[in-house]
């Protein structure tokens, strides 16, 4: 159920984000989803890739600092209020969403969002309880 997300530290300077993307492209690793969180001074490039273990070692060999985090890919109805329904599932629980970003992947009527929860297992249980589908990595293959 859980996906391995890679995070790469990046200085907020021109050309700094493209380098890891280029490296993975050259090595034939697909980037399935990407988000860039940034401040004025630095940024964090977050990636979901086709082969996270290989991508991690490639990036590390290239000198990057890489952190692996477990995230969830959640199906969200692709209509107004769809996201709100998912978020409402956590109202009144102790589960926090650290951050989220969209996945450029649509399954029929559903959009997919990547969620970083502080308690991924509890979040899975809650989502299933609410009938919201959490994808596993296989479902994200083309």
């Amino acid at each position, binding site marked *: 159920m859980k996906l391995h*997300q890679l*995070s790469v*530290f*990046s*200085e907020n300077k021109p050309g*700094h984000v493209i380098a890891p993307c280029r490296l993975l492209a050259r090595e034939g690793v697909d980037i399935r989803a990407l988000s860039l*969180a*940034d*401040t004025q*001074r*630095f940024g*964090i490039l*977050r990636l979901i890739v086709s082969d996270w273990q290989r991508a991690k070692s490639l990036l590390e060999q290239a*000198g*990057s*600092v*890489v*952190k692996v*985090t477990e995230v969830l890919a959640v199906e969200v109805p692709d209509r107004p209020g769809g996201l709100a329904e998912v978020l409402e599932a956590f109202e009144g629980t102790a589960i926090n969403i*650290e*951050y989220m970003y969209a996945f450029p992947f649509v399954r029929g009527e559903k959009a997919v969002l990547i969620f*970083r929860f502080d308690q991924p297992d509890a979040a899975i249980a809650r989502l299933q309880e609410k009938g919201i589908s959490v994808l596993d990595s296989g479902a994200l293959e083309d």
Partner: protein
Amino acid sequence: MTFQPFSAPDYLPRPILAEMQLSRLRTIVSRAWERVPLFRSRLEERGLAPQHIDSLAAISRLPFTVKTDLRDTYPFGLFASPMEEIVRLHASSGTTGKPIVVAYTQEDVDVWTSVMVRSFAVCGLHKGDIIQNAYGYGLFTGGLGAHYGGEGLGATVIPISGGNTDRQIMVMKDFGVTAICCTPSYFLHLVERAAQLDVDLRELPLRAGVFGAEPWTSSMRKRIESLAGITAFDIYGLSEIIGPGVAIECPCQDGLHIFEDHFYPEIVHPETGEVLPDGEEGELVLTTLSKFAMPMIRYRTRDITALIPGQCACGRSLRRMRRIGRRSDDMLIIRGVNVFPSQVEAALLEVEGTLPHYQIILTRAHGLDQMEVQVEVTPETFSDKIGALEALNESIADALEHVLGLHVQVTLVEPHTIQRSEGKAKRVIDRRSQS
């Protein structure tokens, strides 16, 4: 300007000065030999005794004293006077917590006052001047050194100490201050703040600044002089020798006159220790010729300069040294505060547990030294959450500020972006002279 009797030693004919120096040197070497075990054992190792010092040139046979000697004998190991004869202790910052302690007998305080009086006189100050002393008062020698010198001159001293810039400007304006003592960077800050407050220093009676405790460039001097309408004098000194008042610039502004009747200068090759001729650049080595409580013999200042050949146009016979541009060791002087890279390392270690690669970058903005510490992100410290990285950034900055007493800008950088060098790491990039 009327000639003051206390300035007479500035004009001694060289042969008479040399005679005085030799006689004082022999006395001080004998005193250290009798009273400072470290000095005596070093002489004995070399088969030397005080009677071997039969000329000024023979000083080059004597062993050097270095900063670590003061630290190794902390606190009182190099004192040559019993505590009952010591009337004052000062201390300067050290690399790792323990400061360096220096001592003065009443005679030493009097000598110090006399060289400060002469320094102010060289700058054209006299009785009737109102001196705003914005050097810090306390263990630092700057505050009390300038204070006693100003009073000794017969001037009016305002012991305002450092900080509280708005009040400094108010006092300067309302009290009719004619001269100020502080670090050059603090004065520039004061000038800029005055402009914000619509105070034009050029319209005030202020006419001289006696600036020291940190290296400053000629372009900075020009800026100070034009913005404030004053003459800016460079004063040199260090606690280990006496404090401020070892050397002072005269109105010719062509090097600093060393008070050679009390401090004997040599320039040596920083690595070999070989004595270099006048005009050649090297490390300044000073010997105190008249200090009782703590004689310093051939003290390695780590300041790089040269002795200027020939006599100054001002007519003083005292030799001059070029203004200090850099130091041979790694101590940084940032806004007058001594900073060692090892202190930065200690702070980083405290926050991160292990020492990351880092670099210190010094620049100057709005006349003030700016310190940036770039720290490489490590797998241990990296997080996928922005908030966690920002918190890391902040805790490093807090730890640095706590250790150094300075605001430091911390920048997290990608791994391997700080240049590695072979051998000793290049921890400091000093761009202050470019601004």
